[in-house]
């Protein structure tokens, strides 16, 4: 097995080079075309096409008796397209929803396909070997000339996408507008469907029927975590698709009995999981970190407010405030409270003497602002939204942490710099 792995990287076997390049191109092509099905929210249609291709391939084989790729692709293209038309027709002419229609068509076509495949296998036609790689994919079994044919198709796909990029983007984002400016929407949709069918026909070499939808959709699902620009997402998806494709070919070499498809999809899924977890901004951990930061900010600001409230009640802003008094205002555990106090001291909001913590000038201004925002918002809620004064506190407690200086200014102006809040507490201005 490991000799195989090494010889893969030696590239001494020219077929290895062909297959590696071929699977990169196949994976990238499928990913780029799949991006548009993804953003048009038609992820499932790829699945229908992939399954619908099987009867076409088998029929072409039965009728011709040979494994002529041109005929097989034509057969696949024919039934693939037929499935799209059938789904559209069912959705239009009946009350059946699109996902149900896709499920229906998918199983009917695939059922017929399996039937035909069984028939071929039992007929014992010698040329049949390799047909079942359509089911699970087997990149390494491709011959140089197959690779050339399929790569050429993939390159044409990508070229067509580039050529019609502007139009494809527009019909994906806003179809009605596209039609309103006189774009031949029907024609472009026909083109995209044809490209999708072709992408499926070629991609099946790498992953097989069952997992083809993943090769179309997953690269984009992963890529969209890293960018907000369609063109960048397309490039990233192509890289992810290409890399996953070639990794499938590699597996085919080191373990010739292993079906390629599941491995390609494994690699794809790793990309997706990695993106979902670790992408900056949109990823899970990045969001978690943001939440953590928000929580700390809220804790900090709550304690600053508590300082202000106590000082206000005692009419004494200079003196240190005891932990007990603070905890009367905010029921944080002593440990958490100490952490927060030290954090605030580090940030310069608090000073410490042997009597305890007290607000620095800087901290006093910040605390006063928070109290002001809280009370302004309470006033806004009661005056403009007519909410009862005893219901506004909780709302204000969250809002005060989010209000930006611009909003603060507008709030002040709108309310006319009021003296007191709905509970008759003084609003502090600086």
């Amino acid at each position, binding site marked *: 097995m490991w000799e195989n792995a090494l010889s893969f990287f030696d590239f001494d076997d020219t077929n290895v080079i062909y297959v590696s390049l071929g699977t990169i191109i196949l994976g990238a092509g499928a990913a780029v075309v799949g991006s548009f099905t993804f*953003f048009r929210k038609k992820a499932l249609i790829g699945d229908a096409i992939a399954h619908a291709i099987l009867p076409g391939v088998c029929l072409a084989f039965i009728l011709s008796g040979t494994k002529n790729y041109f005929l097989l692709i034509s057969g696949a293209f024919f039934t693939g397209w037929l499935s799209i038309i059938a789904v559209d027709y069912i959705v239009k002419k009946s009350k059946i929803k699109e996902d149900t229609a896709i499920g229906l068509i998918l199983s009917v076509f695939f059922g017929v396909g399996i039937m035909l495949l069984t028939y071929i296998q039992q007929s014992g036609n010698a040329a049949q070997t390799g047909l079942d790689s359509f089911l699970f994919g087997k990149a390494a079994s491709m011959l140089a000339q197959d690779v050339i044919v399929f790569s050429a198709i993939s390159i044409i796909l990508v070229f067509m996408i580039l050529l019609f990029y502007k139009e494809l983007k527009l019909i994906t984002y806003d179809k009605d507008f596209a039609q*309103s400016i006189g774009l031949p929407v029907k024609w472009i949709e026909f083109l995209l469907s044809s490209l999708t069918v072709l992408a499926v026909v070629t991609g099946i070499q790498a992953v097989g029927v069952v997992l083809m939808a993943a090769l179309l959709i997953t690269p984009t699902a992963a890529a969209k975590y890293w960018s907000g620009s369609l063109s960048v997402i397309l490039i990233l998806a192509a890289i992810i698709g290409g890399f996953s494709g070639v990794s499938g070919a590699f597996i085919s070499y080191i373990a010739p009995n292993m079906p390629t498809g599941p491995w390609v999809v494994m690699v794809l899924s790793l990309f997706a999981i990695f993106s979902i977890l670790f992408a900056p901004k949109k990823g899970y951990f990045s969001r978690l970190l943001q939440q953590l930061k928000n929580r700390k900010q809220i804790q900090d600001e709550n304690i600053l407010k508590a300082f202000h409230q106590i000082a206000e009640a005692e009419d004494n802003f200079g003196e240190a405030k005891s932990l007990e008094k603070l905890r009367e205002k905010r029921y944080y555990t002593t440990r958490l409270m100490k952490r927060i106090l030290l954090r605030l001291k580090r940030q310069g909001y608090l000073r410490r003497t042997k009597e305890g913590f007290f607000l620095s000038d800087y901290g006093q201004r910040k605390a006063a602002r928070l109290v002001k925002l809280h009370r302004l918002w309470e006033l806004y809620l009661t005056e403009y939204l007519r909410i009862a004064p005893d219901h506004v506190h909780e709302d204000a407690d969250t809002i005060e942490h989010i209000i930006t200086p611009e909003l603060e200014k507008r709030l002040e102006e709108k309310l006319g710099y009021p003296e007191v809040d709905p509970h008759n507490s003084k609003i502090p201005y600086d």
Partner: protein
Amino acid sequence: MIKQVENPIIEIHDLSVAYERKPVLWDVDLSLPEGQLIGIIGPNGAGKSTLLKAIMGLLPLNSGYIQINGKPLEEMRHKISYVPQRESVDWDFPTSVYEVVMMGRYGQLGLFNRPKKADAEIVMDSLRKVGMDEFKNRQISQLSGGQQQRVFLARALAQQADIYFMDEPFAGVDAATEKAIIKLLGEMSAQNKTVIVVHHDLQSVAKYFDWIILLNMRLVASGPINEAFTPELLQETYGGKLTLLTEISDLIQKHRFPNRE
């Protein structure tokens, strides 16, 4: 009260539209004057959006035809701009404010051509007019409702059309945006552009429009604001008189009658 005009910029003749056999517009017949700010008013589900889509050729017609400046739509498309309802698109689509507004230039550009410098200037100009130039690189998913509507408006401006159809440009926008938009629409009609706006806040109708179309599955009125904006006509548009029409619509759909012989 249906007032027909001489030399209309838009003429709709005996228009009927149905969705899967359920008729939603019956025999709409009207003509509109050039250079005015025109409101289409009617309750929810009255067929206001359907009327705009039918005019833009986005729906198959059951009967009737539409002429723009005396010519069929296809010859006039480059002079017409359509602003769909804001909710009709996916605002999570990965693209920027600038790119969306650039889509307004696609009609002029034609297939295969890339935007040129002049297009970029028009786009920036349009963004400035709606006060969104600072947001040009912003992801559209990060915009507020009012900003989304401004972007749609900028895209329409970038089309440099003579006739504008806008579906609910004031829906869900803040007061500042509404003010800015109506000011802009006023300026456009002052430049002899025809602006047709679906609107459903009755309070502001009289203040905003020169001409109104009252619609509820059928045309109730079309005329200058002081003639068509009357309590009786509003009662006819919003009142319960149309239940019969609704029932017949449902019957036609259920029994699969042809809408036309």
